[in-house]
């Protein structure tokens, strides 16, 4: 009996309801794992194995990033019907997708209430820069720094801060609503 073939979703470590952004992030992580000079795999895999693993990641990504090809693939896996429309890149909100049972089973367990330092540590562990978040969210780097430093005296009113926090959480892959609520509770604004 031959071993079951991994799905493209399994190769990238995501669930079948992953959003376009989630596919992108997972791809960056997986591709980085098999770079020529990747620390995490250089002593585990020989060159041929690393190339094969990288090719498998590229194959998975090439299908899952393309809504039409992804839909065809989902139909083949029995995850979608031929008559259902292919999802657009942003068809599923990130928060909903992260919470979906089909998403990757690992759940981020950060302290509740969460602090700015917790958020910073998580962001850095993902290799995401503040400028990257600022570009994606249109929230200024200065405010992102204030959030991470818990500078309540210079942060905006809770009604605005909530939006900033949700943008931050979305950019680093946390649940926007829960993250904002958890942070605001400590600030007395929840």
């Amino acid at each position, binding site marked *: 009996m031959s071993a079951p073939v991994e799905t493209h979703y399994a190769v990238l470590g*995501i669930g079948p309801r992953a959003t376009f952004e989630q596919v992108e992030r*997972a791809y960056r992580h997986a591709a980085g*794992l098999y770079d020529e000079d990747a*620390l995490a*795999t250089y002593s585990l895999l020989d060159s041929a194995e690393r190339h094969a693993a990288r090719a498998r990641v590229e194959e998975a990504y090439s299908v899952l990033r393309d809504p039409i090809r992804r839909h065809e693939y989902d139909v083949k896996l029995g995850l979608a019907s031929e008559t259902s429309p292919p999802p657009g890149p942003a068809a599923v909100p990130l928060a909903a997708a992260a919470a979906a049972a089909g998403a990757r089973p690992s759940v981020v367990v950060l302290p509740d209430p969460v602090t700015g330092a917790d958020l910073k540590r998580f962001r850095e562990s993902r290799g995401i820069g503040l400028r990257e978040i600022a570009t994606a969210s249109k929230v200024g780097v200065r405010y992102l720094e204030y959030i991470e430093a818990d500078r309540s005296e210079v942060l905006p009113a809770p009604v605005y801060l909530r939006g900033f926090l949700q943008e931050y959480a979305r950019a680093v892959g946390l649940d926007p609503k829960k993250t904002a609520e958890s942070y605001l509770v400590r600030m007395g604004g929840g």
Partner: protein
Amino acid sequence: MSRALALPLPRPRRQIWSIGGGKGGIGKSLLAASLGWHLARLGKRVVLVDADLGGANLHTCLGLPGPSRTLGDFIQRRVERIEDVVVDTPFPRLRLISGASDVLGAANINYQQKVRLLNRLRALDVDVLLIDLGAGTAHNIVDFFLLADVSLLAVVPEPTSIENGYRFIKSALYRRLRSAAPTGAVRDVIDASLEGRNGHAIRSPLDLLAAVEAVDPAAVALLRREIAEFHPRFVVNQVRSPADMAVGHQLVTACARHLGIRASYAGHVHYDDAVWRAVRQRRLFAVQEPDSPAAQEVRQIARSLVEGETLALTW
């Protein structure tokens, strides 16, 4: 004034933490000392154990002179009780069992000595016993790693450290599997893997399971359970760049995909001159420079581990 209830608050059960790394010079002892200090600050009664038998210097990391009583005195039976080699530190709730750098050959304690030591350590009345392990993958080191509830594996983002880290993981896991092996035939397969007697045929625990299936299919489920319960947690020390910070998650993914091991990521600590300055002054950097990035990151790791959280990726 009402009288307080006489019932004592339930204490969480004693935990053993160990911190290994396979390679020397990666800041393991400094991490151990700082983690211990933070745990004590969190209200835990902590005993740090310098199990770097033959190369002990945890006392220096804490800013202490070499204690007059060390683990060597207990191992050599110059004292009978392990409590007699536990010394106070200047920090509340934090005590130390210094290593045995004065005992030639201490790194090679025999089986009876090891069993006596492990049993007495387990019986100590503490909240957390934090064991700083020596470099390498000798059985005595790996056994301390395996007995822990929280097994931390320190690496730095350098090829040699990562390579040794993987070697350490494999050595620890194979030793655990060997102890659980139900038959001599399975033990032989594991021994052959450990000693590299099978060429390139068995390079990972996944290969090992396939080889065991060929000689004793019934043993595979048992070994799978042992592998599932093996749970090392990476700490990436001395990070300098965003790419270094991502190494922890990559190690976890690589362990899962290519070794079949469920590792996790406890966090990273920046390369920080504050650490170097504190070491030069023989002071604990967490105390000397508490606002430094490294000190804050170790504090986060300590808190996270106490609360049972790990850094996991959700996309």
